[in-house]
């Protein structure tokens, strides 16, 4: 026993790993820490390395602004409406793609990739050209439509994988003992596919919440979401802390995505969905 520990081969130091960890920490975490620090700095004058005074003064000031509250409610209502509509039209479609046989099934399934072959902003401009004739520019429902289209691929493809992953033998067994199709769906299919579908819904909500380009191109100036307000803070707001506080607020949905959807993203199937 003692000999085994004494003569254990010395661990090789993982220099490459240490290098990557240090460089990535500096490049990825540090900039975000700086923003976080600015949000809680009452006074931070150049060239001090740390703020002269910490505090919540600018949280009160930011949350007292009417434009911030309008942006928060606009962003949340847009994301909720888009996610709901997307779930209502996409989940039954995903179920059909996974389970039913119908003409053109394969080509229709792959048609959701159509948007992926084109640079996104060019596509948005082409859509905006159509919306101009329909009076959907500067309109809440115009923004809903353009953001809804952006959610279709994920909301169909991830749930299709989820429905196909359900154990069919359990469904058959339930049918054999006389359960109705609806009962089978409710008690067997949904609980198994649920977690992945939940992650898809969460990712759709978060992506919609952060969607900036469609909201800016179609919605401005009447519809101001939080990212759009953030752009105007960056361009025109001399008080640095307003932008910092808004950044921290803006990051909250991402934080939830990080907590609950990381597993889906780290899994290989997510990268394969991007053609890897």
């Amino acid at each position, binding site marked *: 026993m003692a000999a085994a520990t004494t003569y254990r081969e010395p661990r090789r130091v993982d220099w490459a*790993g240490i290098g*990557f960890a240090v460089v990535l920490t500096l490049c990825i975490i540090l*900039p975000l820490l700086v923003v976080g620090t600015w949000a809680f700095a009452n006074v931070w004058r150049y060239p001090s390395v740390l703020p002269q005074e910490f505090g919540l003064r600018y949280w009160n000031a930011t949350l007292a602004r009417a434009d911030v509250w309008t942006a928060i409610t606009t962003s949340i209502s847009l994301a909720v409406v888009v996610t709901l509509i997307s779930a209502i039209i996409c989940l*039954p479609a995903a179920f059909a793609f996974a389970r039913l046989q119908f003409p053109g099934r394969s080509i229709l399934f792959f048609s959701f990739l159509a948007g992926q*072959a084109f640079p996104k902003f060019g596509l948005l401009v082409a859509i905006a*050209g159509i919306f101009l004739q329909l009076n959907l520019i500067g309109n809440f429902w115009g923004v809903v439509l353009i953001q809804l289209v952006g959610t279709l691929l994920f909301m169909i*493809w991830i749930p299709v994988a989820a429905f196909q992953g359900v154990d069919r033998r359990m469904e058959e067994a339930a049918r054999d003992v006389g359960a109705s199709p609806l009962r089978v769906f409710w008690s067997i299919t949904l609980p198994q596919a649920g977690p992945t579908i939940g992650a898809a819904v969460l990712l759709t909500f978060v992506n919609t919440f952060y969607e900036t380009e469609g909201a800016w191109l179609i919605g*401005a100036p009447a519809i101001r979401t939080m990212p759009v307000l953030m752009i105007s803070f960056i361009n025109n707001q001399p008080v640095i802390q307003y932008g910092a506080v808004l950044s921290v607020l803006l*990051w909250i949905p991402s934080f939830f995505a990080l907590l609950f959807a990381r597993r889906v993203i780290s899994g290989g199937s997510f990268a394969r969905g991007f053609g890897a």
Partner: protein
Amino acid sequence: MSLSPTSDIVGASKKSGGLIGLLLVAVPVLLIGWMIIYPIIAAVITTLWLRNDAGAYVFSTQTYRFFFTDGYSLANLGLTLWTTVVCAIILLVVCLPIALYLRFATGRLAVYVQGLAIFPLFVPSIILSYAFIRVLGPNGMLDILLNAAHLPKIRSPYLTPWGPVIGLVWDHIPLTVLILMAGLGSVSDASIEAAKDVGAGPVTRLWYIILPRISNSILVAASFAVLGIFSAFTLPYVLGPAAPEMMGPFMQRTFRDLYDPPNAITQAVVSFGFCIVFGLFYVRSVVRNQRAR
């Protein structure tokens, strides 16, 4: 996620299954047709068939001739191509070593590195832009630290062409690493060990064993980056120079600020043209991967 054969377990009989299936997928499919395919075709048609003085529609390449003879448009296109190529090269140079490390390393440090490499997925680009300005902008964190070390200030990349390059690379690291790692998953340990046994050094193993096997993944990662960067809007708009500007901000300004949709749509069709090879290759790879499983 390939479409496996279905059965009628869920209650729909074979006959009505077809109709029910089509009805269930109708709304999203029609949305794709109306909001993706129709606008693309309409964009090409409306920029090539223009209304003449008599009110009739005639074929004309006028808006395209304007784009390709206008110095400002060409400068914007040039900047966009430069940014796209530089970003794609930097992304591969940065992400390939990370992906290689993560493929062969084990342990807690590797988990931490992977977590960091994927983390930018959870930071929206607008927060990234703001963080960029606070760190690399004038009197930003880097200037503060340099000053504390009694070193001269940097020439800030903010509002120069390098601003969008740094931001876009940061933003695209996670998916590039994920795509390359998925490709490296198909390189077997046995082939690496075999090459080691016959005395192949690290460089030889990389060049003759690993790179040929992941060349497709590299092309997919590059295509994905090109599609995302060519018409990027937020990062170039916030971090880039006012003139020349990248195609994204250029299209937005032409459409909304100059009220000139025909020329904005022409710019969109031009960017479709420059990306079409990458777009088709990318979509073909996704389809092939889906079918393989």
